[in-house]
């Protein structure tokens, strides 16, 4: 029997070889290959434009390859359709995949394949309830009421419904496409646990993510795509997030976090015992001109709420905010922006940029005063400013008039920052600035942060990517349960030291000890 186990271990359940795919004149894939071994968690990474989504759409039967071969379970297929792929046991979990919002959990789970009472046209509601409750309980330890509406669920719960829907079909392969993009970290950790468990039960996982740290934590093997080709397939044990990142951009690791040496200026923003009831308390810190200050903390640690308070989205219940000696009360975003504060929010597509406004309109939205006289807009001046910032930030767009919706995540983020550059804001609050941004754009954003600091701005970066945080900041403050519990000098700190504080590992030890 040992030989047959051996055979399974080396068997590729999915094998895409030498795939070529052109869209019009553009070549999305030029000879990409991907082999996924049965029973493994296989990561797929690449920058935007590397061909990840095209490859996945080919596998899902949404596109057809121009050249190359797709084998599933050792059998070559052409003309795959989404139904056929699902029939072969490959299921896709996608954040944007629609669940009908007004359906109940039970209805959504069985949509299109409702079990019937034998010999009748009537739905077997009892069986539906039992089957779904069984899976939800077994895998998620969760009792989602069958009658809850999809609309009422959190992003994580919706994803659970999707996964459950797939599990009801006894799938062989689950493909997760950026599954954590809409999850908070605690939820993401639960998802990882689940994925490992599914793997142990024999389901093969293909996992696509922007977050290299997830890939390293979760996957057995990783394939890196670059410019439509697979440039490497590595066992994760033998590599690191940095090496994978470098492969994705074809650069040296040191170039990933450009950080200029800047002489620190005068105190710019000072917080004195700032507190917000039930969120954080007694936060005192000083941000200097030319300084990049990092904040990190788990969800609920208060770090995010602190940024929101500084931008007037929450109102502090105690303490003071001082900008260059003036005590200010940012009671609204308008008041905060007037004090030269700028927030680049985490939910970029909701709060950061207006997707259906043009690049120009987004760029000038926070600084319309600069472009109007007696209320009348000077559209020529707006376009000139937008062109200047497109040039300076290397925003890739067809034109100044293109809708921001048509830009990639990284370029959208640059527009969200450009908006404040146009206003000449000087205190930048960046909330997870590189989430959903491809590596090349990340490096450009890091470079920009360095430039802003060089020009005398003060910058606070909130991030859960500790490598990034240590790479681009001068100091890192760790929030735990609403308080700053530790300050690190970035150049003298290892990621694991921050991680230990972040998760409260040291805190617990102290209490126990």
């Amino acid at each position, binding site marked *: 029997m040992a030989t047959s186990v051996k055979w399974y271990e080396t068997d590729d359940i999915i094998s895409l070889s030498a795939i070529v795919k052109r869209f019009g004149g553009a070549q999305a894939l030029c000879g990409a290959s991907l082999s996924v071994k049965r029973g493994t968690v296989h990561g797929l990474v690449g920058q*935007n434009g590397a061909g990840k*989504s095209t490859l996945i759409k080919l596998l899902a039967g949404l596109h057809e390859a121009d050249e190359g071969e797709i084998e599933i379970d050792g059998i070559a297929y052409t003309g795959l359709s989404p139904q056929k792929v699902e029939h072969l046991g490959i299921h896709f979990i996608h954040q944007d995949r629609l669940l009908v919002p007004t359906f109940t959990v039970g209805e959504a789970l069985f949509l299109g394949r409702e079990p019937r009472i034998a010999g009748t046209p009537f739905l077997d509601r009892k069986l539906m309830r039992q089957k779904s409750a069984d899976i939800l309980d077994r895998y998620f330890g969760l009792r989602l009421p069958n009658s809850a509406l999809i609309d009422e669920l959190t992003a994580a719960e919706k994803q659970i419904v999707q996964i459950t829907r797939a599990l009801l079909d006894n799938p062989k392969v689950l493909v997760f496409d950026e599954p954590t993009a809409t999850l908070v970290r605690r939820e993401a950790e639960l998802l990882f646990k689940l994925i490992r468990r599914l793997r142990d039960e024999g389901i093969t996982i293909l996992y696509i993510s922007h977050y290299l740290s997830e890939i390293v934590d979760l996957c057995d093997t990783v394939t890196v795509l670059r410019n439509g080709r697979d440039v490497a397939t590595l066992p994760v044990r033998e590599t690191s997030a940095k090496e994978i990142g470098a492969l994705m951009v074809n650069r040296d690791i040191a170039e990933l976090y450009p950080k200029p040496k800047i002489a620190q200026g005068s105190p710019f923003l000072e917080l004195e015992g700032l507190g917000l009831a039930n969120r954080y308390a007694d936060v005192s810190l000083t941000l200097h001109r030319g300084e990049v200050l990092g904040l990190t903390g788990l969800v609920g640690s208060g770090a995010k709420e602190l940024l929101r308070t500084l931008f007037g989205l929450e109102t502090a219940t105690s303490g003071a905010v001082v900008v260059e000696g003036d005590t200010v009360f940012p009671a*609204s975003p*308008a008041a905060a922006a007037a004090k030269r504060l700028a927030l680049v929010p985490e939910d970029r597509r909701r709060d950061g940029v207006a997707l*259906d406004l043009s690049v120009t309109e987004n760029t000038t939205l926070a600084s319309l005063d600069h472009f109007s006289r007696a209320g009348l807009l000077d559209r020529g001046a707006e376009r000139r400013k937008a062109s200047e910032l497109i040039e300076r930030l290397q925003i890739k767009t067809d034109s100044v008039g293109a809708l921001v919706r048509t830009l*990639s995540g990284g370029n959208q983020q640059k527009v969200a920052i450009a908006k404040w550059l146009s206003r000449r804001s000087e205190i930048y609050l960046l909330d997870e600035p590189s989430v959903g941004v491809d590596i090349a754009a990340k490096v450009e954003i890091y470079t920009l942060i360095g430039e802003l600091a060089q020009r005398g701005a003060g910058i606070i970066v909130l991030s859960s990517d500790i490598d990034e945080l240590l790479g681009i900041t001068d100091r890192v403050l760790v929030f735990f349960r609403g308080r700053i519990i530790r300050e690190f000098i970035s150049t003298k700190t290892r990621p694991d030291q921050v991680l230990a504080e972040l998760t409260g590992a040291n805190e617990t030890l102290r209490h126990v000890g």
Partner: protein
Amino acid sequence: MAQSSFKAPSFTVSVRGLARYALVAVFVVVFAIFSAIAPAFLSGANLLSVLVNNFALLAIVAIAMTFAVAAGGIDLSVGTAIDFASFAFVSLVLAGQPIPLAILGGLVGASLVGLFNAILISGVGISPFLATLGTLFVGRSAQQLLTNGGNPVYLPPSSVPEAFRFLGHGGIAGIPVPFVVAFGVIAGAYLILSHTRFGRVVLATGIQASVVRYSGIALSRYTAATYVLVSAIAAVAGLIVTSTVTVYIPSSGNAFLLNAIGATFIGTTLDPHGRPNIPGTVLGVLLLSIVANGLLLSGLNFYWQQVATGLLIFSVLAIGFANRKAASRA
């Protein structure tokens, strides 16, 4: 992104261009058909009457509506604003006040309606649809209470001053006053929506309100101002209609509501991104006006007018939808 390079620019541009001009094309075709089947349609007197009687009033109301829709809302109480303007105007004239004061009174009366909406929407946070629907009902009852159950308030010919007649029936350099006023409102509204900071914030609010707030703009103030502006513009239509017919009829302003909404949405097809816009709204009003007039002249049953209007809205919006679908594929 690999997908974004999947583009055939010349093709999408032409489809978009085509769809944009569909509204103009539909207008030309409808115009040609009526010219052919109803000889009276093309006469100068008829076209003038269309412009003065149908177009001018509806244009003003539809432009008011365009601001509400541009801000991502709607105003179902434009008729109420028209009525309040009309009531205040007639009451002040009857009381022997000078016409300029009566006009001011009408504008203030209507702006109270807008202020009420603004408080409900910006202050309380009720959705514009429900808030203005409530205002519509409250406004109707208030008018019935004010007029002993809805009796019209007539201006006896003896008490109608000359300046009043001029508003409804006079002319400036041979051009009827209602049309001149409508033209002024159109020009002013175009300037505001397309060329001012206020207009930009209104459009941005309609597209993604949260970004406006996160951009350090006092969102609720702008929204409140928008609904007051909507009522104030609608009031102008109330003043003109009252001067023309020398009577205030309670709740009569609601007659404009559905056409104003229709014209605004028809007008969105003129914009490449489907945004509410003044030229589009004006063209929409022109289309609805000539359809009403043309059907009347071709001797079709009056009730078919509504069917024709509905069909027009369907077809133009269908083209607009195809337009945006083509654009989103780009």
